[in-house]
């Protein structure tokens, strides 16, 4: 049940954010400080999510096969691999290291 609550709240929140942008008069949210924060927020969140899901195991920090997979994904990104290839590299390397 709590999963459905989370889905409902997320769906409503994300939809309202989208609708708000299309509906408010231009200029209302265009203050430079607000814009800069909105641009930087995803950067901090995505970095945090990457770190947490690579090194986190419940409430513990661990170094396991995922770190190798993400390292390989980072190399793929530097080599300008397409999005799906980056994800595939991470999955394959993680599985490979785990199978060793």
């Amino acid at each position, binding site marked *: 049940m709590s*999963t459905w*609550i*989370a*889905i409902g*709240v*997320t*769906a409503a*929140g*994300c*939809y309202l*954010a*989208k609708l*708000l*942008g*299309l*509906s408010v008069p*231009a200029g209302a*949210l265009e203050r430079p*400080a607000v*814009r*800069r*924060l*909105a*641009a*930087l*927020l*995803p*950067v*901090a*969140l*995505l*970095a*945090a*999510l*990457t*770190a*947490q*899901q*690579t*090194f*986190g195991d*419940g*409430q*513990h*920090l661990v170094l396991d*096969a995922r770190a190798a*997979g*993400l390292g390989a*994904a980072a190399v793929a*990104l530097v080599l300008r691999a*397409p*999005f*799906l290839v*980056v*994800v595939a*590299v*991470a999955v394959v390397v*993680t*599985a490979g290291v*785990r199978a060793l």
Partner: protein
Amino acid sequence: MRGVPEQIEIRTGSEARSGPGSGAEPKASAAVVRDALGVGVAVGLSGFAFGVTSAGAGLSVLQTCALSLLVFTGASQFALVGALAAGGNPFTAAAGAFFLGVRNAFYGLRLSGLLGLPRSVRPLAAHWVIDETSAVALAQPDRRTARLGFTVTGLSLYALWNLTTLVGALGASALGDTAAWGLDAAGPAVFLALLAPMLRGTVERAAAGLGALLVLGCLPLLPAGVPVLVAALAAPAVLAVQGLRARRTTEEGGVR
């Protein structure tokens, strides 16, 4: 799923190329459709990774599909299932996902003037206001091509994203232990791929570094889901430091 409102680059979402769209001559509809489909198909296929990740995180096929149908903004969906898998409370988990979705509001601001949508169409169009549709639409030279690009990207991406989510969720159930296949690395790899093109300057890198440090530091201490919210504070913190520095530089400049 990526990009910053004022500096959207078409190359980011998927390596799918769109034309520069800056030519003075009217752009052919066929070219717009081709560009839009390129982005829609490439990114739409990554719904498979979401379906697998979500099912692997313990959500049912129905819940997984509901997320893609109703939330339809990839990073938020991945964040939510990750937080739920870690045992976060539903509201903390939803808060993290929501903060990631806030950037779509800023895409909407840019799009509303460009697309000039009638009031009645806005609630429908809003659901498609995401990184990729915004990137394609904002790259177009005029309203006609922007509307076309937005619609074709939105339609192809929405259809494929939901279809591949279903296939991924069903596939994950058939695979059993998704971790054995390394599929638990798909989520963080998606985040990393979304993050990489945003790391253009010192401010972005500082926010990313601080965000990662905060989340890892808080992970052993705070309940699941909360560390990510704490890490979000890296953004205002870095901006505040940058503001102070800028002010000091101006003052020093004034003394000289």
